[in-house]
């Protein structure tokens, strides 16, 4: 009899399991509706000092509402830190999702796989301004040959250096990667309280230019069939070049191995480093530091004299959500938000680098500070693999772990890069 209770319980449980088909899934199918009036919801990122951005966006929105009678645009600024959760929530619940949204360009492939973004290949092709879009920016909205949005702005890194230190030690601005390393060591030797070139073991986008400049790639392939290239001989050369900068003669491993991008910029801004690799977006932080007025920026040198190391083209895009019920209007609003006019206004307001080559040249003439960044961009930039697996590779810290293994002497370059490649291929294999 006691058994029968157990049995009844088990049967009930089994029945429950059998009928509970699967965990919840939202029905995020694309909407068939294409309403020509109503409210359009827009999510943009909340930047530090957001007011100028709001002003520019407001004027775009006012123009849009004027041109389309009966439409209203509702713009919301979402915090950058929690954007991942917000975007996931939007994909899970189409009813509360926006029509148009800004997203980080490394997230493109992931968002597409999650089924959240609308394919706008045709509309983008018909757009008169699209032809001036710089190829890397275009690549950052492309997955499997289809376009899922319009590039909004780009961010790129270059070499910050201390003009006063270089002058005092009689150094010239490095023209090759070897010169960069030797200049860094000279600074450290002459001024032991400074890092020569401050580098970070967890600073992937500061390290990748070394790999790219030596001819290596993170991964190669297209669409579903990426394969890691991080263990190629060229890539290994780059890894070696970067990791050799960790040491007591430049940036002691004990301190620098754990640093990320922000740590290196903080160190440079606090006057503790002779050189650093920073982005156009780091400008404000450096200006606010001790080194204000005592530094300059040049493109990061490549292997050969006079060449520029390929930089990572970060930045944001604007896309339309699949669940929108205002397809035509939403795409049009996306184009206006990412237009040449808006981008050049946003540059003036926020310092965002435009994604159109001609607009970028134009702003570089107005603002000398961005020149090295624009030069870096025109020399050709690189982008992360357009695979949904990238999010997984990024968040499980495959590349930082590889660099740190080499820096801390746990593994040699060959073994570390082999293991990293294995992990990456596993991710490419499972995530497609």
């Amino acid at each position: 009899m006691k058994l029968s209770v157990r049995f009844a319980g088990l049967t009930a449980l089994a029945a429950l399991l059998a009928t509970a088909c699967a965990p919840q899934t939202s029905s995020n199918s694309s909407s068939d509706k294409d309403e020509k009036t109503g409210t359009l919801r827009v999510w943009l990122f909340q930047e530090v000092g957001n007011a100028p951005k709001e002003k520019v966006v407001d004027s775009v929105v006012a123009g849009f509402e004027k041109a389309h009678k009966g439409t209203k645009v509702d713009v919301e600024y979402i915090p950058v830190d929690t954007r991942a959760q917000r975007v996931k929530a939007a994909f899970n619940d189409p009813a509360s999702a926006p029509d148009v949204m800004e997203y980080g360009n490394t997230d493109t492939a992931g968002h597409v796989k999650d089924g959240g973004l609308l394919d706008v290949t045709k509309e983008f092709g018909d757009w008169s301004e699209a032809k001036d879009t710089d190829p890397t920016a275009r690549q950052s909205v492309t997955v499997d040959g289809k376009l899922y949005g319009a590039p909004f702005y780009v961010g790129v890194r270059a070499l910050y250096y201390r003009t006063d230190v270089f002058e005092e030690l009689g150094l010239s601005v490095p023209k090759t990667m070897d010169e960069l390393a030797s200049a860094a060591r000279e600074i450290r030797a002459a001024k032991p309280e400074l890092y020569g070139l401050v580098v970070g073991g967890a600073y992937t986008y500061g390290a990748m230019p070394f790999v790219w400049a030596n001819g290596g790639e993170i991964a190669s392939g297209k669409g579903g069939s990426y394969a890691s290239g991080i263990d190629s001989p060229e890539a290994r050369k780059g890894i070696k070049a970067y990791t050799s900068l960790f040491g007591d003669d430049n940036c002691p491993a004990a301190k620098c191995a754990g640093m990320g991008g922000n740590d290196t910029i903080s160190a440079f801004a606090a006057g503790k480093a002779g050189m650093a690799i920073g982005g156009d977006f780091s400008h404000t932080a450096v200006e606010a530091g001790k080194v204000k007025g005592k530094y300059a920026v040049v493109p990061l040198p490549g292997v050969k004299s006079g060449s520029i190391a390929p930089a990572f083209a970060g930045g944001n895009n604007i896309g339309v959500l699949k669940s929108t019920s205002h397809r035509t209007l939403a795409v049009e609003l996306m184009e206006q938000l990412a237009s040449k006019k808006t981008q050049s206004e946003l540059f003036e307001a926020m310092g965002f680098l435009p994604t159109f080559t001609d607009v970028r040249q134009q702003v570089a003439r107005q603002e000398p500070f961005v020149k090295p960044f624009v030069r870096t961009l025109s020399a050709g930039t690189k982008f992360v693999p357009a695979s949904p697996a990238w999010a997984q590779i990024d968040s499980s810290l495959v590349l930082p772990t590889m660099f740190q293994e080499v820096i801390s002497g746990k593994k040699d370059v060959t073994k570390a890069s082999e293991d990293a490649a294995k992990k990456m291929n596993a991710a490419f294999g499972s995530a497609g």
Partner: protein
Amino acid sequence: MSRVNDHAEPADTEGGRVAGASAEFDPVEAGGASAGAGAAGSDAVGTGARASETRAGTGAAAGAAPAPAARPPHGSRPAHAPASGPGNVAAAEAAPAGGVREGSVAAPARQGGGSTGRPPGKEARGRRSGRARVRRGASGASPLVSGGWTPWLYLAPALVVLGGLLVYPIYQLGLISFFQYTQAQVSGGEPTTFEGFGNYAELFGDPQFWQVLLATVLFATACVVSTLAVGCALAVLLTRVRALPRLALMLAALGAWATPAVTGSTVWLFLFDPDFGPVNRMLGLGDHSWTYGRLSAFFLVLLEVVWCSFPFVMVTVYAGIRAVPGEVLEAASLDGASQWRIWRSVLAPMLRPILVVVTIQSIIWDFKVFTQIYVMTNGGGIAGQNLVLNVYAYQQAFASSQYGLGSAIGVVMLLILLAVTLVYLRLLRRQGEEL
């Protein structure tokens, strides 16, 4: 009142054995089998008084031979009972099990079990008990509220909360761990596929998992031992010092306790910072980096974990020591026992229940440590050398939205913690400790 009597009557045979068995089983079953019992009990709740009647009838049917004594009350429908056999039997069994808590049904059941072969005496006692129950019912809410489902009614709020907040999430966790369930599946970009033990296979096939698991177990053990040692030592100290230092120590401990883990970790990191940290300056270590070496990084985190979790142990144990009669301690010191001896031979045995609670708490806390590692070693240390299971789960699974794999890690952790706790409780039981 005769209902109880009827139920007790067939105790000589099968019905009594069942009742006795389930009553005895109750302490264990109460939590674990609540799902099954609840399903069975719902039958009783739904049909109210009729259910208890049929229960009596079923008891009689089960008792079979001494049926004449059973006297189904209020014209119960005996024909109904055999027809719906197993279900009602289940209800009959579940009811007394729950009834133990309420204290009315259990008494006759136990008597029934114990008084085999002495029908008259048992009958009398059964009647007495039945009267007592009616009296209680009258002075309570309503005389109609009787029978097996009353305890469930009282337990209902707790069960609803437990079911909603504990059972359901764990059920979901287990369910998701069997599926390929990433953000693409959640938002409907791709269909959800059943993976069986695929997620578990992937997890156990990852050599890093075993490495991290080992590190977690060792680290948690070190944390638990240090926390308990520091907490108990300071609790004893608290009883030995004057009011003012005691207040100061209490306030300091409560301050540490109240500090959010992120803040505490950041402050500790700053204290040991190679460039600006006061510790290096005081010890004259130059710019030694504490987070670079694996062991030294773990040691640093251990200090923070102990710092923020010893106050709980200290305060609880201190309260326990205060409850120990002063004469016992006085007698011990009159006999010339040292502090250590008093702790070992007097306080520790008397405080054992409290120590059990704080140990289990500490095991669970320290096994699940996340914030300290994440903040202090920057997400797992140089090349992941300081990863513990929780941070590993976060990086492998949740940060990249692989919820299926993450759930599998969660289930594994749950099982490990349950096993550790059960083994620990069992060891204590072996030593003759009732909990």
